[in-house]
């Protein structure tokens, strides 16, 4: 079970994290706890996997170049192909989804040449086509996700 402190940390600081010399102490003051408690809770949440990091989410295609891509892979080979896809450091998300196009991943590279090379290699090595779905327009303003506990 998550404590009240953990819930507040997870929900209330997904954006607008303090850019002050002592951000964790500032958060602690706002929550009526000590800086040490905030640091301990964040460390624990990170170890448990609930927090992936305190940090920056970059807007797609501002620093590197990224794309969503999909493949249709027979079930018997899905794990093998998924492992091949995940083995690329350029791949950051890789999911099985309920569809004939059943493997969906996001790849990010410093430039489009390298990105294309990764997709080509995955296709050649797996023997299955890779359909790229690069972003054309982004409609969502990312403020994090409002967690509802009840």
């Amino acid at each position: 079970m998550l404590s009240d402190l953990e819930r507040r940390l997870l929900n209330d600081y997904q954006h607008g994290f303090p850019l002050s010399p002592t951000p964790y102490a500032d958060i602690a003051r706002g929550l009526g706890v000590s800086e040490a408690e905030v640091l301990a809770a964040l460390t624990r949440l990170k170890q448990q996997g609930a927090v992936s990091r305190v940090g920056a989410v970059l807007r797609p295609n501002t620093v590197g170049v990224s794309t969503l891509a999909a493949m249709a892979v027979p079930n018997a080979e899905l794990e093998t192909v998924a492992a091949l896809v995940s083995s690329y450091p350029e791949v950051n998300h890789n999911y099985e989804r309920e569809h004939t196009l059943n493997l969906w991943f996001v790849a990010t590279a410093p430039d489009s040449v390298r990105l294309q090379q990764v997709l080509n290699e995955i296709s050649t090595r797996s023997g299955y086509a890779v359909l790229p779905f690069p972003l054309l327009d982004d409609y969502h303003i990312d403020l994090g996700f409002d967690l509802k506990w009840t």
Partner: protein
Amino acid sequence: MSLAPQTGRTPPLLDETDRRLLAAIQSGLPLVSRPYAELGARLGLSEVEVMARLQQLQTRGVISRFGVVVRHHEVGYGANAMVVWDVPDEQVRELGRCLAEFDFITLCYRRPRHLPQWRYNLYCMIHGKTREDVLSNLEWMVNRCGLQGLSHEVLFSRRRFKQRGAAYFDETPAAGSAGGG
């Protein structure tokens, strides 16, 4: 198909120091009392300069969000679906903006069709505690945005093979999660 950025935005110019700073926080802000000072010490920058550059990167839209990055699955949101619609090109912006307003949506993008095998051009990601939650949110959204007549598919995730922050920089592999591009 070209994978060059097609967003219509000119990528903001980053100087070498910005790139080193973004690389240094790729795996997360240090969990210490003065994290910006620690980053500065690693990079040969002052604490003030680290904070100022992070502020500028947000103002310029390079950093879209700075804060706690949560893994939805680990905090009780066990269901997520990528919902894809086939929307007439002239309506996609308006409908995309309508969908993006809902608080259970984490991503909403226009992407190219791949005819004949894939006709969908508007994508959004819905997170929920259960499949039923996701589907009832979807129904609510369809009604509110007037999407009833448009063909769509709901692609629930089945297995997560990999989830972490994008590795934009070679030197420090990330170990986190982020909404992907």
